């Protein structure tokens, strides 16, 4: 589950990780209100206004309607209202979300300015924690080069990337945090605060069941504080049962409406922008069916895994979701019947079809496995606009025909 920056910051703060303080607002008026409370004397202060969307690259991204950037530093309360007004309600397009046409901004975070002058040098670092699949351990990735795209740092200056693996038997050790902080070039008080920051951040990652936690930049101020200026975090979906209070952190406005509807019916559905819908049992076969659609000259309109059962009810719900996508020109149902028999799936398809009534796109039903021939016979004799197939190759050929 993805979190917004302000949600993630509030969570890590509870673990003793210093953050750039701030509060969210949904209107320009609210923005001024929360800005006023950030400083004892807010007049003439600098504020940072940050769009809250589930995509990175906000600082360089542009709000389509107004031309504003997604993150803006500004001075004075009047200006906060003005800037917030140019971001709120707009569509923010960044390098990470341009494929889906950007995200609508419903909230902005009004945060204090951390880049004030002082006795020591300011510096932006990079720090993230994630699972290293190859070793089965958590890995901390750090760099002296914060504030920019870490993939580019890794590509051009790999020597500036530090990695430290955490032994699950003993957890993170002090020497590891010291090593990382020295490796990033931290010294003196900044180093001391950096070590504390790293140790507490790992505790947060563990305690929150995060599966990705990225601080970019991790910022050393001119008076040697180390704070999280940005925070990107996602929570392991399999661990949500341990955190019932996280349910309210899910932001349905950030998700595709069809995906929200499908998840309410317990369907594993991902909306794509192709023209052939598909409904499959099993995630691997579902991905393979999408690939097959592409090879047949179409583009997959979705990923949909209906699970092992593939009952008449799930099939009907699946059809209803797929048919709401106006781009869908044909639907491929691909079920490998193992424990569940193909004749039962076929009857389910026929029943679902009749319940829905008008279906104006061709449907190809490929049933393989137990009683596959019987399943095909039921489909063929149903009198509906449904074509049957048994082998994958046949199914691919039928999809091609349907599109031509």
């Amino acid at each position, binding site marked *: 589950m993805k979190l917004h920056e302000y949600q993630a910051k509030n969570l890590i703060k509870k673990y003793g990780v210093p953050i750039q303080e701030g509060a969210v607002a949904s209107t320009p008026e609210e923005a001024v209100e929360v800005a006023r409370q950030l400083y004892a004397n807010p007049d003439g202060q600098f504020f940072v206004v940050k769009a809250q969307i589930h995509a990175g690259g906000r600082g360089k991204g542009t709000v389509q309607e107004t031309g504003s950037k997604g993150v803006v530093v500004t001075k004075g309360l009047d200006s906060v209202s003005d800037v917030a007004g140019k971001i709120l309600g707009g569509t923010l397009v960044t390098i990470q979300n341009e494929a889906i046409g950007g995200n609508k901004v419903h909230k902005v975070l009004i945060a204090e300015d951390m880049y004030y002058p002082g006795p020591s040098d300011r510096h932006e670092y990079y720090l993230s924690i994630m699972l290293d699949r190859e070793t089965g351990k958590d890995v901390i990735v750090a760099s002296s080069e914060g504030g920019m795209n870490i993939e580019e740092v890794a590509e051009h200056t790999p020597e500036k990337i530090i990695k430290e693996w955490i032994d699950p038997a003993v957890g993170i050790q002090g020497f590891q945090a010291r090593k990382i902080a020295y490796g990033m070039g931290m010294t003196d008080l900044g180093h001391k605060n950096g070590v504390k920051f790293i140790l507490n951040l790992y505790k947060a990652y563990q305690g929150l069941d995060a599966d990705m936690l990225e601080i970019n930049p991790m910022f050393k101020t001119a008076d040697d504080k180390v704070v999280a200026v940005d925070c990107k975090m996602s929570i392991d979906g399999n661990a949500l049962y341990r955190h019932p209070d996280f349910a309210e952190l899910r932001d349905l406005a950030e998700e595709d409406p069809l995906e929200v509807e499908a998840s309410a019916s317990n369907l594993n559905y991902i909306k794509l922008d192709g023209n052939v819908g598909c409904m499959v049992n099993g995630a691997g076969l579902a991905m393979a069916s999408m690939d097959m659609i592409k090879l047949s000259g179409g583009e997959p309109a979705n990923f949909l895994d209906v699970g092992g059962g593939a009952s008449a009810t799930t099939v009907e719900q699946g059809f209803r979701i797929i048919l709401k996508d106006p781009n869908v020109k044909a639907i491929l149902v691909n079920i490998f019947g193992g424990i569940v028999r193909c004749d039962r799936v076929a009857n389910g398809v026929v029943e679902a079809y009749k319940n829905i009534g008008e279906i104006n796109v061709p449907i190809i039903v490929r049933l393989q496995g137990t009683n596959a021939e019987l399943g095909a016979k039921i489909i063929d004799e149903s009198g509906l606009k449904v074509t049957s197939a048994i*082998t994958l190759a046949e199914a691919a050929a039928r999809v091609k025909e349907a599109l031509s």
Partner: protein
Amino acid sequence: MLSCQRIFTESADSNKSLRMSILVNKDTKIIVQGFTGKEGSFHASQMIEYGTQVVGGVTPNKGGTLHLDRPVFNTAFEAVKETGATVSIIFVPPAFAADAIMEAADAGVDLIVTITEGIPVKDMIYAKKYIDDRGVRMIGPNCPGVITPGECKLGIMPGFIHTPGTVGIISRSGTLTYEAVDQVTKQGFGQSTCVGIGGDPIIGSTHLDIMKLFNEDPDTEGIIMIGEIGGSNEEIAAQWVRDNVTKPVVGFIAGQTAPPGRRMGHAGAIVSGGQGTARAKMDVMEACGIHVVETPAEIGITMARALAQLAK
């Protein structure tokens, strides 16, 4: 890495040649953890029907009773001690599954098969460390299990689609594996053993671990490896194949059309930061001499051709 476990099976008819398989055979004694639950009961009975030696099960607080005519024990330790089982299959719900995995390893089995889907990553980090420290092999989690056709069905796959034969199959998926099995059977080859290694980011055995077993198994003449987007296990296995395997290997990667940054059903099926794309995996596999197919419809026929070429 764990030492390769090779099990020799003496055929009942001593005139026939020695049949080998990887991981399990007709004599393997198995206990079921989560035995009396809905999933455990259903699949245990299917396994028994197939002829698998299910010798008992574990459900805390139901010890001393009988279920499916087999004894139920309170602990895996007791179950192993009383039955002599060397393998445990786990159907325990996700919140308790990591605990069950560690219990099985502590009880002294050689092999654990974890079917459970949805175990938190943090739990699996601990469980994997625990079993690795004890040298216990695991298949899964989030997998269909292992089958040696005609001998032992240790999982949730439909038994009847499998035929004893010479093709070994390794896969991260469930139904896509059945698809490959079905195609291989229809090409007239059958399977030596099929191993569903699971769709999670942390799994007990990787493509490489199982590839090594198939490479050493004289009954396996060809190997099919089915992968998915996410991680780099397929690439690691492919590089080993290039240097060590002379048997034909056919490969397919699901998810060529999957969008980056989205989890495609399986917790481990995600392209992140440009890493783990289907194209990159297929290119590495191809470069390592693996017969890579673009469509899953050609898995069986490609293996048939590769084996025919070998016979010439």
